[in-house]
Every structure is written in structure tokens, then in C-alpha cells.
């Protein structure tokens, strides 16, 4: 899974039926010290994450397993909202 920060939201009226009711969030990958680490991607979300929150997301086929038994056509899903990050002897509250 990868760390990221929620930076936006995408709305689409016309979409695959499996995406109905799903929130689609823009997530910017970040390093453990919360610096940008690449280009943003769009994630489905099973946690209720909101603007600015630090999360980690799962990629690939297994990211759709978050919604079983519903079949959601996603390739990236937010699976956790972080409270704290402990890295290199330092702790960040998220």
C-alpha cells in the first residue's frame, strides 16, 4: 500500500453502474515525512476520508475487494486513514 494525502474529489454523472454511490478522491502520493512523492491518482474510498487527510491506499485488483460482495471497478482504493506515522525515530500526528 502507499501513503497519500487527499487533495480533491472527482464527480462523474455518467459512469459504470458499479461506481454508483462511490466517492472518488484525488490522492497525492507522499513520503513518510509527508512531502509530495509523485503525481496524484484517483482512488475509491471505503473509509470516509476527507480533505487533507493522510491515508494509505491499495492498488490493483485487490483494491476492489474492499467493497465485496459489491463489484466495484476500481484499481486504487483508500483503505485506512492515518492517526500517526512513526518513522526514523520521529512521530508525526496526521
Amino acid at each position, binding site marked *: *500500500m502507499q*501513503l497519500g494525502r487527499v487533495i480533491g474529489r472527482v464527480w462523474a454523472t455518467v459512469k459504470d453502474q458499479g461506481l454508483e454511490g462511490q466517492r472518488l478522491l484525488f490522492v497525492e502520493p507522499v513520503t513518510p515525512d509527508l512531502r509530495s512523492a509523485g503525481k496524484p491518482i484517483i482512488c475509491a474510498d471505503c473509509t470516509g476520508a476527507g480533505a487533507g487527510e493522510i491515508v494509505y491506499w491499495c492498488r490493483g485488483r485487490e483494491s476492489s*475487494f474492499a467493497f465485496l460482495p459489491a463489484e466495484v471497478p476500481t484499481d486504487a482504493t483508500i483503505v485506512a486513514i*492515518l492517526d500517526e506515522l512513526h518513522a526514523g525515530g520521529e512521530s508525526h500526528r496526521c
Partner: protein
Amino acid sequence: MLIARVIGEAVATRKHSSHEACKALLVQPLDLDGSPRGVPVVALDAVDAGAGDRVLLTAEGFSAMTSVGRANSPIDSAVIGVIDEVSLF
């Protein structure tokens, strides 16, 4: 699989139920010379690894889910071994 170094832990209260009661480790994938290989990632812990350990990291869903005993879950990477030694021929 990749070699990685455990550099920390990600603590989350709100998360998918399949990630409950499982440590989420922050790991830095490594090249053979020990230099960083890409950015650190989050991996569930299947072997009770700790900070500083050099570990075996799987970055594929089926093996990651199997190693932590949670089938059909949104898990794409796991720490599945603690490396004692690497020798090259």
C-alpha cells in the same frame, strides 16, 4: 519479492476491517547495494518484524493476503520474512 528495511509504522483507527489487528509497517524497498529503491510503502506484517529489520517484501495481492490469513481483502503488500543473510554468486 523485494528486499526492504522496516523504517516505521503507520497507525490508523479508521481502516478496512481486514486491516484490523495487524501491524502496518512502513518499509523502504532496497536495491542490492542497500540504496533506496523508490519511495517507502506500507505493508502488513505477517512475521512480527520490527524497526530496522531487513525483510522480505511481497508486492502482490494474493501472496500478501495469504500471508496474513485474510483472503479476498484489499491488501497488496506484506512483510513475509526477516532476512538473515544475502549472498551473491
